[in-house]
């Protein structure tokens, strides 16, 4: 059944359909529509979950750490500053192997206060051991959120579903809303591999001395590795039931492309338009959408970009003192691959600035026109600034 939904509501519907048992959240713009909708569902018993209206994002995740250790299905949503406040517990949740699902609405970090789209918040958490997924549109948000529970519960790793602030969270799009019984087929009740149980009392998360800590960490990496294959199988099954699939990567016209644009999130949709336009002009351009950021589908990226001469990575995020974060990851993925394409990094759309078709076309033009990348990342569309302290 098609409905016109905000991206935020797509998240909420997925959480409802997943029969989530404990939700804990703290409000932050632009995540609020997710938790408001879920609060309504809990209030009117549409969803039989306990909703904890905690006093901070830190406590939101802490509460879920408690709940998930009891073996129930859990969800939270946050954004930006809130995610940063959770940072400590992001590590905790993954190392405790808790299948918590979180929606993160990608928003810029302050200061200055900025509530608009920017991926630096979630990418700054890339080393916390969470599976990270980036969505392009509301249908994908809904589908990915449902899939996230399967991923999390099978791998015993937490999953972060990312969606761009406003461009996705507050934008209404038609969404095919699946029926509960169909979702139930895809997502059976959670079968925990461990839980707090007074019949079989154990202590969890106690002191882990050097003689065991590394093995525990390696075990997480093993799960991440298994996650790459498992993601594909989840998608296969999802496709069988719902007729849709997205892939950890989506390659458009990459086989014969000389330049491949690499994008994530809503910039992908804009880039699709540019791609159509440029292809019509006969440009040998391709598009690679990265959906699964952790675990990073390294091998697939190598294969899909193997025939191109250049890749142009569009980053709505930045690592200060280095470059765009996706660009870093792509460079790292390709460096040990003989004959790999040149990697051109572009930073665009930080703090919610529009990444228009013109911006993407400019990126293509710059990539095509330069034989070698001029710098690690080119900041596209920077304005002249009228006033700076110490300006003479």
């Amino acid at each position, binding site marked *: 059944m098609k409905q016109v939904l905000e991206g935020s509501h797509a998240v909420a519907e997925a959480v409802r359909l997943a029969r989530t048992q404990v939700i804990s959240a703290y409000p932050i713009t632009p995540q609020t529509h997710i938790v408001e909708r879920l609060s309504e569902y809990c209030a009117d018993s549409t969803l039989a979950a306990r909703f904890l209206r905690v006093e901070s994002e830190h406590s939101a995740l802490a509460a879920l750490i408690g709940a998930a250790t009891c073996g129930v299905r859990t969800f939270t949503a946050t954004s930006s500053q809130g995610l940063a406040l959770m940072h400590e517990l992001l590590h905790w949740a993954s*190392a*405790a*192997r808790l299948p918590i699902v979180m929606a993160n609405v990608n928003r810029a970090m302050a200061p200055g206060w900025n509530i608009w789209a920017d991926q630096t918040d979630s990418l700054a958490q890339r080393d916390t051991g969470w599976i990270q997924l980036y969505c392009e549109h509301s249908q994908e948000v809904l589908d990915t959120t449902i899939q996230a529970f399967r991923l999390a519960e*099978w*791998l*015993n790793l937490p999953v972060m579903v990312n969606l761009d602030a406003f461009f996705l969270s507050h934008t209404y799009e038609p969404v095919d809303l699946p029926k509960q019984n169909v979702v139930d*087929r*895809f*997502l*059976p009740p959670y079968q925990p*591999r*461990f839980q707090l149980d007074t019949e079989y009392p*154990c*202590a*969890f*998360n*106690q*002191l*882990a001395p050097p003689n*065991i800590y590394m*093995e*525990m960490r*390696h*075990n997480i990496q*093993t*799960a991440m590795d*298994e996650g790459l*294959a*498992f993601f594909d*199988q*989840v998608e296969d*099954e999802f496709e*069988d039931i719902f007729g849709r699939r997205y892939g950890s990567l989506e390659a458009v016209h990459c086989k014969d492309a000389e330049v491949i644009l690499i994008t994530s999130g809503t910039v992908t949709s804009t880039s699709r338009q540019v791609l159509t336009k440029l292809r019509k002009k006969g440009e040998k351009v391709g598009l690679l959408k990265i959906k699964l950021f952790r675990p990073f589908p390294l091998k697939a990226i190598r294969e899909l970009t193997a025939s191109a001469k250049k890749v142009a990575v569009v980053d709505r995020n930045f690592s200060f003192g280095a470059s765009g974060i996706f660009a870093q990851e792509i460079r790292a993925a390709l460096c040990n691959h003989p004959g790999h394409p040149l990697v051109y990094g572009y930073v665009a759309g930080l703090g919610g600035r529009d990444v228009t078709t013109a911006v993407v076309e400019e990126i293509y033009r710059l990539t095509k026109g330069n034989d070698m990348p001029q710098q690690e990342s080119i900041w596209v569309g920077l304005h002249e600034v009228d006033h700076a302290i110490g300006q003479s």
Partner: protein
Amino acid sequence: MASQQPLTTRSPLIIPCSYLTTEGNKTGSWRFLRPQYEEKTSPCSSACPSGEDIARIQMLTAQGSFKEAWETILMENPFPGVCGRVCYHPCELQCNRREFDETIAIHTIERFLADTASRYELKFGLDKLPEKKQKVAVIGSGPSGLAAAYFLALLGYQSDVFEALPEPGGVLRWGIPHYRLPPNILNEEVSRLQDFGVRIHCSKPVSRKFLKEAKNNYDAIFLGCGHSQSLPLSIPGEDLPGVKNGLDFLKKIRRGDIPALRGTVAVIGGGNTAIDAARSAVRLGSKVILVYRRRQQDMPAFAEEVEMALEEGIEIRELETPVEIESQKKDLVVTLQKMRVAQEDPQGRARIKPEGKKRKKIRVQHLLIAVGSSAAEDWYDLPGKKRGVIKLNNCVLVHRSREPALVYGGDLTASIKSVVHAVASGKEAAMALDVLFREGPGTIESTLKACLVGIGPSLSMEIYLGGPRVKRSHSIVSYDNLNTDYFRFAPAISQPRLLREERLQSFAEINLKIGASLAIRESERCFNCGICNQCDNCQLFCPEIAVIRDQNPQGRHINYEYCKGCGLCVVECPRNAMALEEERS
């Protein structure tokens, strides 16, 4: 349905999750101090001349185990009924509880236990040691002689007690008035001894010749003939008809020879016999003046007795001494010399001198002299220092080859003439003879020393026999050793007594019985210094769960595999029944 089956194999989880307890950590290796159960000696039991295990007696009483408590007394003293009445209870003076609020009424509890045993006709279950071949003659059936015979019986020896008078008991029967010790109490205690195997031969005075013949029949002779000979005043008029001695006076009352006494009686002296005579005279209907040459506080009589005498209307004239007695018609006129305190001796007792020629005359109808007594026969006198003479704390033993050993005991050797000292003397004699018979004279002193209660001089038969008390340390628990946080203030019970008016009417016993609930309440006040009463604090507060309850008499043991030696159990033991010592690696 694909979703029902695993899509891919997945690796086992390695997570921080426990599957063992901490019991594998033998934290006992951390320990450098070692707590242990170490019972110690209570100051009361050390102060008791007969070494009664008072802390334990109180504990058993508090638990309602009256028979066991009574038998615990009997292990050290055959006369709980007598001593529960007439003992001057030096134990109470040393009670640690005095520093907290008031002493435990140990004396009252002892009497309660004896009364209870009597009321329920309890049979005591002490076992005698196997019978030995040696036999002992005991001269005198006073407290020391009967105690000697009793403890000898316990140790497996037969003895014959020879009593000059027609009934046994000595001073207990003839010297202590009924209002302090009713005769049925004495009779009961004596017959219990007889049931235990003590043979008493009454109306059998013993002569010097007997000693010579004894060697054919006996291996030892215990002389417990007491001081039955009153000392004279050695003043003019002492022989006048109205002048009598206190001991004879008391003896006659016991025989029923003096139904009443009218007029005014002067009693000369400040000892227990003087007080007993004075109070008896009051009961016979006379007015009594007690004349003492020192001050009231210097009287050798027990203070409690003096106080009651005053309550009963006896007039005490202190610092006066008779110098002449004259007869005027039917009266006696006594001239009293005023004395003054010249100085005090180290014990604070007054040394006195006549105060010039200050004299005064009083007119009385009777005069009782009770200024002390001595042995009735000169052959009772102690031998001097010579070979074969061993001077012990409460008796003197003379061992001679081819002759029966001779033990001088009771009042003959006692520095303090009290019933409980007499018991101590009889017990010491029995132990000394047992050592002599078994090992010869050489080890008597060292063996007895090992049986001291605390630092002594009291001795314990239980220790001598190797009972549980052996394990107790000789160190005496002081108030500072206790953890008094576990005790609540509670006043001592007061001994119920006959009213003054009731007392004066008859020789009825003054001190009344107390009930079991009162006795339990009182004995619950006892700190039980140095002994474990199973309060379980050690177990309760152990942070290591290293105090384990078990079936052994201690009720618990320390698991040194885990005990870290923090010492909490020792400090939180309210009664100092534990000790912390350096760990020997």
